[in-house]
């Protein structure tokens, strides 16, 4: 059992200060770029496309000057599950995947086990997609302050206000969620430590944990929910005391600046992602 430290694993939501190119972009640019790239990643099935996307992602990580080690640590909690699923996919999904640009070839077949070049491809592509998305998501939050992020979301959603979308309120929900995440992580850590000290069977986390019963989870979830609701009540009271009245007619002190670099990055990612999508069936392998 390793020391229980959750904050290590919350790489999403943690702003890591810096002055890189990426840090300085308008949040709307980053959000849009994130969306475009996500689309491209989601629909790319070939090895080549994924290799390109992986390189692009790594390039962005370097441009942002965030340590790769740090991003990889966010991968750690998921590892056993990724491995398990990868093995499952590899061994049992032979039928399900028609490989890209290849004739389906059965490489090994024993009983239920059916490994094809299709399942191999599926595993590799899934894993690389996962890593790419993980990095991009972490990058987004690591290089953008939360307030900027939500200003960006709100600004982008504002045009839809006429259709009844409460843009400001929704972005506030997101702000609150992101703000509470590290707090709740710390609280969860404290609760687990206290329960472990009482002998609760927490964490044999190195190995695969197949079944966590409802009882085992209750020792964490009940106090966590109680604490979360208590904080929520405090926040509600504070907001009401400040006469928070929703987003209608609300002005903002911070004005976002969309400059030439932003336009450039926006344009590049848009074109790149569009190209990847349009050409997705044209890659050789």
């Amino acid at each position, binding site marked *: 059992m390793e020391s229980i430290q*959750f904050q290590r694993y919350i790489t999403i939501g943690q702003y890591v200060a810096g002055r890189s190119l990426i840090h300085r972009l308008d949040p709307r640019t980053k959000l849009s770029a994130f969306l475009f790239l996500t689309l491209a990643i989601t629909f790319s099935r070939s090895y080549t496309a994924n290799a390109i996307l992986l390189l692009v992602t790594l390039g962005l990580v370097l441009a942002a000057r965030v340590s790769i080690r740090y991003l990889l640590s966010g991968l750690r909690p998921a590892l056993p599950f990724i491995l398990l699923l990868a093995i499952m996919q590899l061994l049992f999904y032979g039928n399900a995947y028609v490989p890209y640009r290849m004739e389906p070839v059965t490489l090994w077949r024993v009983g239920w086990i059916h490994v094809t070049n299709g399942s191999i491809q599926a595993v590799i592509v899934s*894993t690389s997609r996962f890593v790419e998305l993980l990095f991009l998501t972490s990058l987004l939050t690591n290089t953008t302050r939360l307030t900027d992020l939500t200003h960006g979301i709100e600004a982008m959603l504002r045009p839809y206000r006429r259709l009844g979308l409460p843009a400001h*309120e929704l972005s506030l929900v*997101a702000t*609150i969620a992101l703000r*509470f995440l590290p707090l*709740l992580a710390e609280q969860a850590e404290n609760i687990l430590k206290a329960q472990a000290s009482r002998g609760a069977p927490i964490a044999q986390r190195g190995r695969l944990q197949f079944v*966590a019963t409802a009882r085992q989870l209750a020792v964490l979830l009940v106090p966590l929910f109680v604490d979360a609701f208590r904080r929520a*009540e405090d926040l509600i009271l504070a907001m009401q005391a400040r006469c928070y009245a929703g987003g209608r007619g609300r002005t903002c002190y911070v004005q976002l600046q969309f400059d030439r670099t932003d336009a450039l990055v926006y344009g590049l990612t848009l074109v790149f992602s569009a190209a990847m999508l349009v050409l997705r069936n044209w890659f050789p392998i």
Partner: protein
Amino acid sequence: MLDLDGDYAMRESSLSVRKIVIAGVLSAITILLGWTRLGFITVPSIVADATIMHVPVIVGGVVEGPVVGTIVGLIFGVFSFIQGTIPAFKDVLVAILPRLFIGITAWLVYIALKRVNRYAAVVVASVVGSLTNTVGVLGMGVVRGY
């Protein structure tokens, strides 16, 4: 508990202060549960799912109503999409769409049964919510050919 919701401009918004904050906090819990993989029950099958990540969604639906339930469900879905390690979860229709309904179904069941027995209403609402999640996701998975 002070509740000024009905008294001023907030009435025009579908989201009161209370709903905003609770939606935010429950979303945070959802993300926390998913990200730290707490209580991830993996049963080797086509759909390996987090079986407690939908609890905050149900809580949101029962306690604060369908709007909050849908929002938290959306966060659950988006998160599941971002995190999904199998192809089925990389599909928006499988990961996100069914999750939007968890809060609504839980809420509907709760208000329907609440007069009969509050405690039972909560339990049944939770079950229905969980079912919405499982059936919805599996169903969409099948429909989409996974």
